[in-house]
């Protein structure tokens, strides 16, 4: 085997910031290579250079031993490198085969004697046939005539992969391919990657999910802070713990340790028959009921876009319901304003931290009080006590381990993890009865994730209730006491977090299974 892609001393700088520093990478033909690293470690920058989206500042790129320069993805595809992005680039109203050939359509030909003349008409029949053959060759379960908008996320991803295979790429780069998939689809994808490998395809997979790496990679390259730390063979010695340590640079506790304190029996938050329509009039939350008790974390599992965002909006006072009730310790809070909710003891960690959780251009100190800024500690008779606000910041920075470079920088200068800690500090320090948290560790580095998980569990152990929405199924499963599954705006299943399997959850998340009788009404049964 020889190197199909080789990077020599590849460096990418944005101004003075070095995103990739002196990367030496050599991918062998026919192998599955995983590139792992935390958010911001430089994985995507590196791939974007291989794919021609970015041009290296220094260093050179070799493809099959020849130096190459890609000025755009088109160059890369022509050379034989294809990439499937985390977010698909498909046209929903076109069919599978139309999407696959989009951009390099086959024209109808007119034969005159020996000569063939291209007509400005698309030869749909032939295109369809070629794609059908391709689907059969790679054994992808797809129908060439289905419209993209009718396909599941997993099937769309297969279309994206076929799109690249149709262009006969030798190297397939997959950027965070499992981020949007349910467990069953992840398994299917891993099987497909094995198939592709058998057929001689080289695959590079970028991810931060270690068990998936373990399941499909031959070799693993670890990136950390713009540097390629090491490349190792995926054998028994390469444990998840070891890989995590390489990614972070220190030992990491991968498993969350729970206290084992039993769930209380007093209900804290009771949601009943909650429904809401979105701006287009579609019912996005449908008759949702659940109860969270003292000392309990209720996790919500579901594929993104199944009503989680709207449910969170309803509970945090940002959206009007069409029906239902929400009681916090038997007080009705459904139609309260966000400031009233906070006063009543509802802590909020919003899904979109940079839009709703933080004011980027305001300093950390000011962000640490927003929503609580009229409390008597910070505000007397309408006048702000900026001394106290600074004091509060100093306390919070210490207590919640918020790493800041200057004394009181704007939040925009903080890393994702530290920015999230600002929100966690603000919401937890104001003594919530219930914490509503959505995607609390998305885009957050492993160290901060650990810290946030510990904080949430500590709150639970203080007798509080936690409502946790996360697209990381493993996060929901490891933190929550009980899991409800949401599909198409409805709660379709309820499980004990300890005993339910990922596969079982996946079946409910995809809508394939549904519980007839939910325990939700009565509590945790």
């Amino acid at each position, binding site marked *: 085997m020889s190197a199909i892609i080789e990077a020599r001393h590849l460096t990418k700088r*944005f*101004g*003075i*910031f070095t*995103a990739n520093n002196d990367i030496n990478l050599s991918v062998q033909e026919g192998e599955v290579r995983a590139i792992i690293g935390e*958010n*911001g470690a430089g994985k*995507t*920058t590196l791939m974007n250079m291989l794919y021609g989206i970015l041009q290296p500042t220094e260093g050179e790129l070799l493809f099959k031993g020849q130096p190459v320069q890609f000025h755009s993805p088109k160059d890369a595809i022509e050379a034989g490198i294809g990439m499937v992005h*985390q*977010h698909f680039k498909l046209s929903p109203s076109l069919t599978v085969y139309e999407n696959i050939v989009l951009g390099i359509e086959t024209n109808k030909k007119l034969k005159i004697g020996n000569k063939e003349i291209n007509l400005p008409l698309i030869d749909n029949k032939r295109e369809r046939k070629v794609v059908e053959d391709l689907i059969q060759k790679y054994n992808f379960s797809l129908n060439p005539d289905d419209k993209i908008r009718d396909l599941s996320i997993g099937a769309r991803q297969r279309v994206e992969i076929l799109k690249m295979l149709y262009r006969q790429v030798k190297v397939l780069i997959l950027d965070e391919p499992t*981020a949007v998939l349910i467990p069953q689809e992840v398994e299917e994808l891993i099987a497909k990657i094995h198939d592709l490998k058998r057929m001689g395809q080289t695959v590079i997979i970028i991810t931060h999910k270690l068990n998936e790496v373990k399941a499909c990679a031959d070799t693993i390259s670890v990136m950390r802070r713009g540097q390629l730390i090491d490349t190792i063979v995926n054998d028994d010695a390469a444990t998840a713990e070891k890989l995590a340590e390489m990614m972070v640079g220190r030992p990491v506790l991968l498993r969350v340790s729970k206290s084992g304190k039993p769930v209380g029996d007093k209900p804290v938050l009771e949601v009943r028959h909650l429904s809401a329509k979105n701006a287009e009039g579609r019912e996005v939350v449908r008759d949702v009921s659940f109860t969270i008790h003292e000392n309990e974390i209720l996790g919500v599992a579901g594929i993104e876009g199944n009503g989680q965002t709207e449910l969170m909006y309803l509970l*945090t*006072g*940002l959206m009007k319901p069409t029906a239902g009730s929400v009681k916090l310790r038997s007080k009705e809070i459904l139609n309260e*304003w*966000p*400031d*009233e*909710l*906070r006063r009543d003891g509802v802590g*909020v960690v*919003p*899904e*979109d931290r*940079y*839009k*709703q*959780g*933080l*004011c*980027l*251009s*305001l300093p950390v100190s*000011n962000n640490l009080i*927003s*929503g609580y*800024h*009229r409390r008597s500690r910070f*505000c007397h008779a*309408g*006048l*702000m006590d*900026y001394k106290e606000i600074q004091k509060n910041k100093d306390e919070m920075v210490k207590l919640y381990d918020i790493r800041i470079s200057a004394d009181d920088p704007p939040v*925009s*200068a903080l890393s*994702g993890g530290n920015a999230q800690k600002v929100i966690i500090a603000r919401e937890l320090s104001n003594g919530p009865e219930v914490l509503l948290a959505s995607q609390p560790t*998305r*885009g957050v580095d492993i160290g901060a994730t650990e810290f946030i998980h510990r904080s949430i569990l500590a709150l639970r152990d203080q007798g509080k209730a936690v409502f946790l929405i996360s697209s990381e199924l493993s996060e929901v499963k490891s933190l929550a006491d009980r899991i409800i599954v949401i599909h198409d705006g409805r709660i379709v299943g309820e499980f004990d977090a300890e005993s339910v399997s990922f596969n079982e959850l996946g079946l409910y998340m995809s809508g394939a299974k549904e519980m007839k009788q939910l325990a939700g009404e009565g509590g945790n049964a």
Partner: protein
Amino acid sequence: MSDNLKRRSIPVLNAVIPLAFAFALGAIFTMIAGYNPLTVYGLILKTAFTSGGGWMQTLGFACPIILTGIATAFAFQSGLWNIGVEGQLYFGAFAAALVGAGYFGLDCIPVGLQMPLSVLAGILAGMLYAAIPALLKAYLNANVVVTTIMLNYIAIELTEFLTKAFFQGDQSYDSTYAIQETAEIPKIMSRYRVSYAIFLAVAIVLVVWFVSRRTSFGYEISAIGRQLEFSEAVGMRVRKKIVLIFLISGAIAGVAGATEVLGVNKNFMPNFSTNPGLGWQGYYVAVLAHNNPLAVLLIAIIFGGFRYGSIAVQSKLGVPLDLLNIIQGALILFYSIKYFHENKEKIQKHLKKANPAKKEEQQNA
């Protein structure tokens, strides 16, 4: 240390360079018109800023600009682009003129109350007129820039129509009756333009400054101005605040109109706020001052001085007043370019963040 000095000097440079460019451009036009720019600029500065009397006139011209400037800046710092101060000023002036002149039998108001009630009428009129774009923004999310600019034209034409149709005073003038002498805001010295309204203007600047800096309302304003969605999510009741901020801005614009009528013009004359209108000058001032109340005060005084100086130059040398408009326009134009970046590191950091941030955004999409 020298780094610190460099950083501090950058905003100053960013303000001085456009100033120099604007005056250079003005100089070119002055030369084209056949005058020596040095003489012209020298005379403007000398008349406006070197004698006690000059200062009195300067402050007189500055007074309404301070008010329109602070009205604009107050809305702008909340991210509400109220370009409608001109219109709100017109209605403020109109209402104050009617009450001050004793229309609708209001001449029965006791002497001591005439002036304050006239100012109050101006305030209310300015607020009411600002309520239109405020409600449109808060409840229908109408683009404030569009609504306020259009409402300016309506205000100017409507007050003209109303004046000519219903409230025309002396038939030889297209204006309302003069206000009662007892409703006037007295001048500090009868020879000079400046009235006691200047103290009110300065007081309003200080109050706005204090409110923005120290109160919880000010804290909310700064958050709303920076990030609306965030402010809503943490419970700042943004709609209500938008309306409130607009009303306050309109009220200050109303004061500007009222004091101009009661202290200087003595009646309401259509199109009294001459081109470029006092509201527009306030807009320039707010932009140049970065919405900082104290900077508004300073820059408005400079603007007032140039206005007065230009009038003097026009009468003495015959240089048209339009020259000032060119300089002011050029000033804004050159100002909109950032010559030096305040902090190179900051930009790098943004670049550094650009990637994960983008990813985050896509994930949420």
